[in-house]
């Protein structure tokens, strides 16, 4: 017997609304359908009505976990449009924050992966240590989550010697803890048993479906915008692109922990090379007509903003593509033929940031081969009705 189970939009595995509809056969998923749009806010339209400066704060609120990524991607694009050259010190601070954000995001993800696998102790430990980096970010920027440290032409806050010393101390602690998690993630048998060989995504699928970030790198697709298109100050620091070739969730864990260690390395280099001087230059109010494509390596993968100016103080068009959106086709590929128990893990493995992906998009991606004439709204109503009081067939045979 096969029947449909709705996952979401309100589901404990997902901290954000999205609806996955699984057709399952016993414990095995036979078909996947994703319905987005629950988190669609229409930010791109809104951006056309706000000024360049106001948009920093709007763009920052696309997503809470990678807020700095979106803001930085936007700001570096706007700086190119305005032909500004921000001072070196400002750039170092900006990208220091962006690496710290990567640390916070990956630690958060590790914890969430532990939680999805029912490993709550791991979740508690990683989140406890995440507070260290949250404290550092709060000290640098004044806020825990939306740092608001970017401004057009530089950053808004400077670092002093005491803060630098504190950041260094924090990094030492974090590095030690990350190595410990690397050890747990790769050795604790019940955890590894859950994540190894789950959610296989071969390299040719990665390429065909345009997956990005750690999801792609765990399948051996070694692309990192920081390395291949070194924006700002990334050509001055030395780091490696972390990859794995196991193509499964374990590989994604390994890639993320390796990236954590690389990020500590980058942060230390930033602190070592931090030049004296100003942190920002004054920015004009209007931008000349033109267009720019800004790319940025967010914790989840390549973040790309396409900005078009028309000579006024407002953008003509701001197109945001967040990494999670690029990973959805790959996710559906991974989910098919998996177990119900693996849904949260596989879905979490792309580090979904639904709010990022949905600033403007709605999609209904159908499973393979199934042509449905039912309107999505009907389907949804049916699924909801089922969720509330589904008359599940009593005489069903369970193929277990």
């Amino acid at each position, binding site marked *: 017997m096969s029947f449909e189970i709705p996952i979401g939009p309100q589901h404990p595995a997902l901290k954000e609304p999205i609806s996955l509809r699984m057709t399952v056969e016993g414990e095995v998923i036979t078909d996947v359908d994703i319905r987005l*749009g629950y988190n*669609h806010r*229409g930010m*791109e*339209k809104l951006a056309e009505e706000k000024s360049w400066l106001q948009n920093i704060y709007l763009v920052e609120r696309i997503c809470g976990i990678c807020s700095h990524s979106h803001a930085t991607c936007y700001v570096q694009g706007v700086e*190119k449009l305005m032909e500004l050259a921000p001072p070196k010190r400002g750039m170092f601070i900006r990208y220091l924050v962006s690496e710290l954000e990567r640390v916070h995001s990956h630690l958060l993800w590790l914890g969430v992966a532990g939680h999805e696998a029912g490993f709550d102790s791991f979740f508690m430990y990683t989140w406890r240590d995440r507070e260290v980096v949250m404290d550092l970010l709060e000290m640098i920027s004044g806020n825990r989550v939306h740092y608001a440290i970017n401004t057009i032409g530089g950053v808004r806050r400077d670092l002093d010697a005491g803060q630098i010393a504190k950041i260094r101390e924090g990094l030492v602690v974090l590095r030690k803890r990350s190595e410990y998690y690397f050890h747990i993630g790769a050795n604790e048998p019940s955890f590894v048993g859950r994540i190894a060989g789950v959610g296989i995504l071969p390299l040719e699928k990665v*390429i*065909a*479906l*345009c*997956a990005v970030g750690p999801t792609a790198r765990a399948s051996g697709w070694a*692309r990192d915008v920081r390395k*291949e*298109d070194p924006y700002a100050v990334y050509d001055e620091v030395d780091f490696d692109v972390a990859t794995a070739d196991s193509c499964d969730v374990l590989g994604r864990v390994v890639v993320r922990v390796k990236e954590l260690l690389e990020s500590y390395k980058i942060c230390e280099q930033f602190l070592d090379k931090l030049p004296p001087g100003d942190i920002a230059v004054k920015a004009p109010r209007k931008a000349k007509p*033109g*267009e*720019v*494509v800004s*790319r940025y390596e967010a914790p989840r993968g*390549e973040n*790309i903003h*396409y900005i*078009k100016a028309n000579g006024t103080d407002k953008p*003509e*068009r701001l*197109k945001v*593509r967040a990494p999670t*959106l*690029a990973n*959805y*086709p790959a996710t559906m590929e991974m989910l098919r033929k998996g177990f119900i128990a693996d849904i949260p893990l596989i879905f979490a493995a792309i580090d979904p940031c639904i709010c990022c992906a949905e600033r*403007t*998009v*709605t*999609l*209904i*991606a*159908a499973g393979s081969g199934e042509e*449905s004439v039912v309107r*999505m*709204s009907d389907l*949804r109503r049916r699924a909801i009705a089922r969720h509330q009081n589904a008359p599940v067939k009593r005489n069903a045979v369970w193929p277990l």
Partner: protein
Amino acid sequence: MTDAELIEKLKVDLGDKVAEIAHPAPRRLFLKVAPRDLVAVTTSLRDAYGFVFLSTISGVDNGEAFEIVYHFSTPETDLNLRTEIPKAVPHVDSITPVIPGAILYERELQDMFGLVIDGIPDPRPLVLPDDWPAGNYPLRKDWKFERPQEVIPGGKS
């Protein structure tokens, strides 16, 4: 391959299919093609130049026409393929058969601009919320939104 070499090679290979090539910044190429050549150019870009990775597709409402930009990238460079579609006949060919990962972005275009993508493998209407009124395309410049009056709970309105 540097950007300059790539431009030369593209000019030779694609010939008159390329309407214009711009190179405003290092590692950023803008190519303009006619809508009818889109699929052919994409295919040859993928096969001969290794532009397998599509970052996204952006649509812009230019007033008289829709401008669609396909952002490709390789480890060496970024290539932005631009095409213009007249508003009167908003039809464009799908590149999903060439690059399967494009499906989401094309659906997004359908939804936000009211473009019709010919040959898209999954042609079901792509709406915003389920109760979204038909014929409204939020990212068109002539579409304006009136915010409904909010109620203040328990207070004066």
